[in-house]
């Protein structure tokens, strides 16, 4: 192979990469926070909430889980403005991630809630707690603890999936890679390097989530 790898562009373009990294991390943090909150709300509705609210939640979850994230993103960014909703690339990207993670984490958390021993609900009721109070104080934390590994994997998947927000020109890591390759024509090198960055980010995120899990759940859950 006569191809010569050339990384001389790094000196000039590393600030672009850094900016992309910051954006990807921001997207992931905000998307995770609100996405999991939305997921908890969906899980509560589906397993314990009012019956009339369940069909719309089911429809939302099924629709999101059975369509590509890219199309959800395009629909939000290109489609919604025709209804008069305007937003920046970053806002659209965050919204898409929240909606996406909300549906997936909702299903994961629901499994955690449904694995709760019946005695926990009965104990809550016998202490004169309402159903919601029992959920809030007795059921939720152990349920999250049960599914924390699955939820963590899903958060990593969403972070990696966020690479496509570059397609609506949100300036994340992939956007930086596209930008650099269009300026330097060193396509393979720029994607190779940024792929490595994603790999490190995925490993770091997994470690961070493990740490958060240890912090949130210092004790073992009831089985």
């Amino acid at each position: 192979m006569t191809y010569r790898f050339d990384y001389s562009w790094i000196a000039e373009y590393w600030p672009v990469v850094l900016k992309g990294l910051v954006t990807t991390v921001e997207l992931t943090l905000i998307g995770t926070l609100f996405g999991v909150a939305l997921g908890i709300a969906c899980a509560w509705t589906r397993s314990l909430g009012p019956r009339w609210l369940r069909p719309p939640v089911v429809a939302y979850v099924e629709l999101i889980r059975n369509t590509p994230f890219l199309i959800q993103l395009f629909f939000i960014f290109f489609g919604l403005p025709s209804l008069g909703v305007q937003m920046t690339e970053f806002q659209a990207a965050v919204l898409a991630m929240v909606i996406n993670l909300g549906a997936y984490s909702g299903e994961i958390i629901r499994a955690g809630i449904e694995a709760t021993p019946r005695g926990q609900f009965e104990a809550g009721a016998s202490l004169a707690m309402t159903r919601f109070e029992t959920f809030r104080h007795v059921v939720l934390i152990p349920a999250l603890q049960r599914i924390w590994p699955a939820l963590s994997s899903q958060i990593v998947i969403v972070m990696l999936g966020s690479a496509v927000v570059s397609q609506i020109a949100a300036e994340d890591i992939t956007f930086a890679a596209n930008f650099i390759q269009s300026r330097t024509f060193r396509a393979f090198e720029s994607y190779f390097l940024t792929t490595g960055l994603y790999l490190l980010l995925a490993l770091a995120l997994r470690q961070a989530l493990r740490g958060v899990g240890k912090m949130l759940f210092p004790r073992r859950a009831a089985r």
Partner: protein
Amino acid sequence: MMTFTLWDILRNLLLAARWTVVLSLVSFIGGGLLGMALLYLRIGKARAGRMFVLGYVELFQGTPLLMQLFLAFFGLGLFGIDVPAWLAAGLALILWTAAFLVEIWRGCVESVARGQWEASASLGMGYVQQMRYVILPQAVRVAVPPTVGFSVQVVKGTALTSIIGFVELSKAGTVVTNATFEPFTVYGLVALIYFALCWPLSKSSQILERKLNVAHRNH
């Protein structure tokens, strides 16, 4: 300027959806075959083989599929060939699919109770015989629902190949949007077509899993 009826839009999208289906099938079947080869190494006795698959899975599950597509596209280009988008798309999706299937299947093999290994060992079976007659037949039954479930991820994954220029459903959506200036309708329809492809797979995966759980309770 030309006007498009809803039917015009839908027809164009459906025509392109054929390529989504073809690419999904190729990726799933190719990924499945590669996944089986990797599984053989992953649960085998050779340490080097296990380590290789571990690294492979880490690499492909730890990086964005979009980046893998770019690398396949530009990486193949390094060999001096003019890379058609379908080749890079197929290659990347096959490698990516295999990385997920091998982990799913490994879990299924490990879910077979330890007593099954011991009973078959006590009857004098060797490793290959245990695998062939006792462990794999049981693992396969457990593996069907999650494997069908993962096929949904493959179909959705093909959407990313539009970004490297493969013309399938998503790419057609962008093209039609640019021609009609009706993104809401077009992307809405695109989403519905994906849903029509994926939802039956999701649903059958759920049903299969429920059946399996019922069957298991009887043991």
